[in-house]
């Protein structure tokens, strides 16, 4: 929205006029502008547009639009202005009421030449600064800030005087400061004050303004700017770290979701389940199928599709898990390494089965409306999707914690984790506990798949990309302790994202793998090792 300079002069005059002359009900700037349209002079039309731009009248936009489309009609004799609607009906521009009994044939369209067309463009840009919708005003103010067009200054001053919404007012003040700071006409004190205003904004754009001062700026302004720049950079560095920590939390909660089911099967049964990643994948495909069914039979439910998919995915993958445990794994107890091989075989079969049924390409899983969008917290861009996944991961964690602490099966699982033979001696059916544990672990993997379908490609290889990371989380955090998994997932996630800016994504990942390998040397049983007297566990 650039304003041409002749218009700006007009705006300046009119803005002064508007502030100096008390407003009468019948002769505000809006009415004056309408009167000027009736004179059939290009100069008056352009001037009228300038008046409209600062009038603050809600119908001004409509009038400017009508003029641009050639739908603004005047009756020079009566001094009346009409707007022709799309359906051909006429409305009185002054009152906005339908004009009855007016002979359309007697009216003349307001004509435009190049100068008027320039004024139209400028007026509709400036009008955004006076738009009744605060969001539009904010956008207009930010556009001015970006363009730093000195000719908008008068309109900006007028808008600033009228503005009541604090956020918009601040944006306008920042935009104004950005213009003043680079203008050699402005007094030195005002420019230094402008530096302070910009420094308050404190973002990347503000930094750019301060760094691009004109070379002829006075030394005092430059000094003020330099210290402001240092301040902004400090703040931005802190926010940068915060942003990376946020990304890290998001990655950590993904890891937590993927690893937590593994942690309980590994912890309770000492079983390495290489098919765990495929349970995650099955969960994601369950989401896909649920969404397809909803699309086909009841599209209105689409926003609830994930909520519907969660219990279905839990039950489905849990059932698959119990079947795997009953048919394969229970024959391999005490042989952890063989279990690893058998479950790897199962993972190959599951992958290929999904590839055969759904094809090797990615499947599209949609996001419900409540998961899309972004909100700014300070200088952080927080996407709802990521935020929900963090919330979801924490809920799953707490639910699992509650199951382990508060239910009978949880008690039995913990007993088996600590001492399988003793638990069996006390009458716990360890076989049954194993099956339930494996089912629970697989079911949670399925739930994780529902969440991951929102941020990753739903393909037969989905599980493969998480399995190594999940193992590292479990091993890093320590077996048999959910808190270890939580701490492990979050620290690996955050460390990964904090390393990335320095080392790049791949090197950062390699560094993290090396760190975990070294850490395991230091603490072979992870962060939170189960304490016990067994020399071999």
């Amino acid at each position, binding site marked *: 929205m650039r304003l041409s300079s002749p218009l700006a002069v007009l705006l300046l005059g009119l803005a002064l006029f508007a502030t100096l002359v008390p407003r009468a009900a019948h002769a505000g700037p809006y009415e004056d502008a309408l009167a000027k349209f009736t004179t059939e002079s290009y100069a008056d039309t352009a001037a009228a547009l300038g008046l409209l731009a600062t009038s603050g009248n809600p119908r001004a936009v409509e009038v400017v639009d009508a003029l641009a489309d050639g739908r603004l009609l005047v009756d020079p004799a009566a001094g009346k202005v009409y707007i022709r609607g799309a359906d051909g009906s006429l409305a009185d521009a002054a009152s906005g009421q339908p004009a009855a009994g007016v002979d359309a044939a007697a009216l003349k369209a307001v004509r435009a030449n190049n100068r008027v067309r320039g004024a139209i463009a400028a007026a509709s840009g400036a009008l955004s600064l006076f738009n009744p919708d605060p969001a539009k005003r904010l956008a207009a103010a930010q556009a001015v800030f970006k363009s730093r067009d000195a000719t908008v200054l008068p309109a900006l001053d007028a808008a600033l005087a009228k503005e009541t919404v604090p956020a918009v007012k601040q944006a306008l003040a920042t935009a104004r400061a950005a213009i003043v700071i680079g203008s050699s006409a402005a007094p030195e004190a005002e420019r230094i004050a402008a530096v302070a205003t910009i420094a308050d904004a404190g973002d990347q754009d503000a930094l750019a303004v301060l760094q691009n001062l004109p070379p002829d700026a006075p030394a005092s302004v430059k000094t003020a700017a330099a210290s402001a720049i240092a301040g902004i950079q400090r703040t931005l560095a802190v926010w940068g770290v915060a942003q990376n920590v946020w990304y890290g939390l998001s990655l950590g909660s993904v890891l937590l979701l993927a690893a937590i089911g593994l942690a309980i099967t590994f912890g309770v049964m000492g079983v390495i389940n290489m098919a765990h990643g495929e349970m995650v994948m099955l969960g994601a495909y369950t989401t896909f199928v649920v969404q397809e069914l909803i699309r086909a039979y009841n599209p209105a439910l689409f926003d609830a599709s994930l909520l519907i998919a969660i219990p279905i995915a839990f039950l489905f993958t849990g059932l698959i898990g119990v079947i795997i445990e009953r048919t394969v794994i229970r024959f391999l107890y005490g042989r952890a*390494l063989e279990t690893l091989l058998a479950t790897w075989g199962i993972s190959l079969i599951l992958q290929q089965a999904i590839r055969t049924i759904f094809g090797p390409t990615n499947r599209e899983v949609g996001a419900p409306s409540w998961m899309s969008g972004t909100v700014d917290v300070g200088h952080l861009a927080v996407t709802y999707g990521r935020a929900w996944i963090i919330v979801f991961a924490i809920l799953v964690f707490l639910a699992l914690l509650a199951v382990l602490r508060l239910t009978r099966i949880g008690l039995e699982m913990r007993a088996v984790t600590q001492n399988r033979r003793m638990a069996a001696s006390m009458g716990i059916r360890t076989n049954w506990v194993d099956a339930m544990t494996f089912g629970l672990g697989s079911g949670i993997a399925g739930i994780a798949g529902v969440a991951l379908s929102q941020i990753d490609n739903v393909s037969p290889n989905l599980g493969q990309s998480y399995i*190594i990371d999940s193992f590292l989380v479990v091993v890093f955090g320590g077996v048999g302790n959910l808190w270890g998994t939580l701490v492990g997932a979050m620290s690996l996630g955050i460390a990964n994202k904090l390393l990335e800016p320095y080392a790049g994504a791949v090197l950062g990942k390699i560094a993290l*793998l090396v760190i975990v390998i070294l850490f395991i040397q230091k603490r072979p049983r992870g962060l939170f090792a189960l304490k016990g007297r067994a020399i071999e566990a």
Partner: protein
Amino acid sequence: MSQTDTRKPALLGTGGLVFLAIVIGLAVLVPALNLLLPAGSALHVPTYLVSLLGKYLCYALLALSVDLIWGYVGILSLGQGAFFALGGYAMGMYLMRQIGTRGVYGDPVLPDFMVFLNWKELPWFWYGFDWFPFAAAMVLLAPGLLALVFGWFAFRSRVTGVYLSIITQAMTFALLLAFFRNDMGFGGNNGLTDFKDILGFNIQADGTRAALFALTALALAGGYVLCRYLVRSHFGKVLIAIRDAETRVRFTGYRVENYKLAAFVVSACLAGIAGALYVPQVGIINPSEFSPANSIEIIVWVAVGGRGTLAGAALGAVLVNYAKTYFTSGMLAPYWLFMLGGLFVAVTLFLPKGILGTFLEWRARRSAGSPEPDAPPAPGITAKPAE
């Protein structure tokens, strides 16, 4: 091992002799049938088949290296493919330097991919690879040193069982990511390929292929004798004891970590040799050799053939890879992963001692009364404390 049996077991035994005879027979027969018979003859072995069989024998040597540590020490390494790939890269770097000015860009020193990346000079770690003895030493040193450092840390800290498996997997995964990077100077995603000649012989020529095959067979035979010697020695007895009761061996006064480390390093060097022989026959080495899935597949070969039998590991590698070639090239290709996965499950459930292990057990049972000296200590039976 029965305590009453005081005989020093033969180095090879009948089974071992049969295995050696087959391998050395192949080393002579396959090149002879390829080179001496005319192409039209019914017994002629086409050159592609020579290379294919050579590839199988490389895998057999690799499987042997896994069996040494998994079958006899109980170390399940999910990163054995990394040692294989490192040996392969050492050989590949030698072959790249041999291309000289015949590359697409004709640079006498820099391999094509470096010219493509606008590199001006050879990175320091490429120096010396134009000299075969140096490259051959690196085939052993690169995997051996990695195994030494990694094993030294891991075994000293008593990282065992599944924890060890997982960190070896992390190791090969880290190397996979590293070798995918163009900046590493190993050809990135595409790896090293377009080889021209080896020791002055054209790498595509029938004679070279046949010689490489014979060398591979001899390396397999040598590797087998070495492993056999190791597991029959006092050293090997300690390894088996560690596999079955690590803590007890430690309390008896042995430095368990040193024994494990030695076996691990030998195994890594064997895998490196297998990789070095693999690269000229296949004609390419790229980072996918580091992928964790490859390393797990090696374990299956050993499990199918028979863990702790050495010859069984080699047998398993050839069988599984023959099946893979057969099934992935025909109509059944989409079902190969079902079969491989099913094989994993079936072998662990129904054939825990593998093909050869089961056969040996059956033969030992038949001639009951006279304990078969060849019978391998069966890893599947040994009672382990509940984990």
